[in-house]
């Protein structure tokens, strides 16, 4: 049904993460968790998948002795998102005809 759509992005949480990151320069793990209403475990797994696909960069550091994970979309992630939206539009157009 959705053969043309990128399977990496065609998942609720991964799509939500990429859609969120496309509008900002970078975001902390807890911010993404809150905005996507996800659990820490699930989000970690999905972020790792996006990282492996080269769509996001994950930076791990410390702030006030607490671990801090920051995520940022890459150029590849932006291109993949744009293609995904383009394909989605085409799919909707075909369906509405």
């Amino acid at each position, binding site marked *: 049904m959705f053969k043309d759509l990128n399977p990496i992005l065609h998942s609720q949480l991964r*799509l939500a993460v990429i859609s*969120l990151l496309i509008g*900002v*320069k970078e*975001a902390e793990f807890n911010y993404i968790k809150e905005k996507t209403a996800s659990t820490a475990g699930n989000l970690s797994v999905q972020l790792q998948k996006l990282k492996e696909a080269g769509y996001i960069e994950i930076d791990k550091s410390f702030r006030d002795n607490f671990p801090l994970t920051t995520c940022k979309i890459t150029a590849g992630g932006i291109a993949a998102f744009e293609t995904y939206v383009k394909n989605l539009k085409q799919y909707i157009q075909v369906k509405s005809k």
Partner: protein
Amino acid sequence: MEMNENKALEIIEQMISNAKREIKDNGKYHMMWGYLVFVSALIDYFLLITGKQYHAYVWGILMPLGGLVSILMGRKQSKNQRVVTYVDEVFKYVIIAFVVSLLLVCLIMPMTSKHWSSFYPVLMIIYAFALFIMGGILQFRPLRMGAMAIWTCSFVAFFVGYDYQLLLLALAVLSGFIIPGHLLNLRARQHV
């Protein structure tokens, strides 16, 4: 969970609008600097007209104090900042350009005494320049209107003496910093 095309669109729309909402400024810096400059200008003016020799010393006390408070506020803010938007990034560069220009004018112009009478008018031009851009970035009309009021004050200030320049400066920060700062604060509270 199965995701259809409508759900995909809904997610994209919702997340993009979430990120959009992060564009905020509560006007704290505008208010703080507005009141500091307003009070300094009026104290300077009253000391000047009452014949006090060291009338301008108030600037040397209140401005570094404002700088210190700004640094502390900035540190606290960056500690609590969980997301950096592109607007934050542009804003950062506008502030850096503004502070560098302001410091250069404040350090160089008083040393070259022949340009002393243009000091406050030039200062106001820099204020207005930065505020107008900020008003554009934040899509906040009162800031742009304030910048225009400051440009007007600056224009007039080129043709009057030091005492009236101080009053014009007070009027400029009232219209460009204090009033828009309170309005920004009100907008931020309404959008919480």
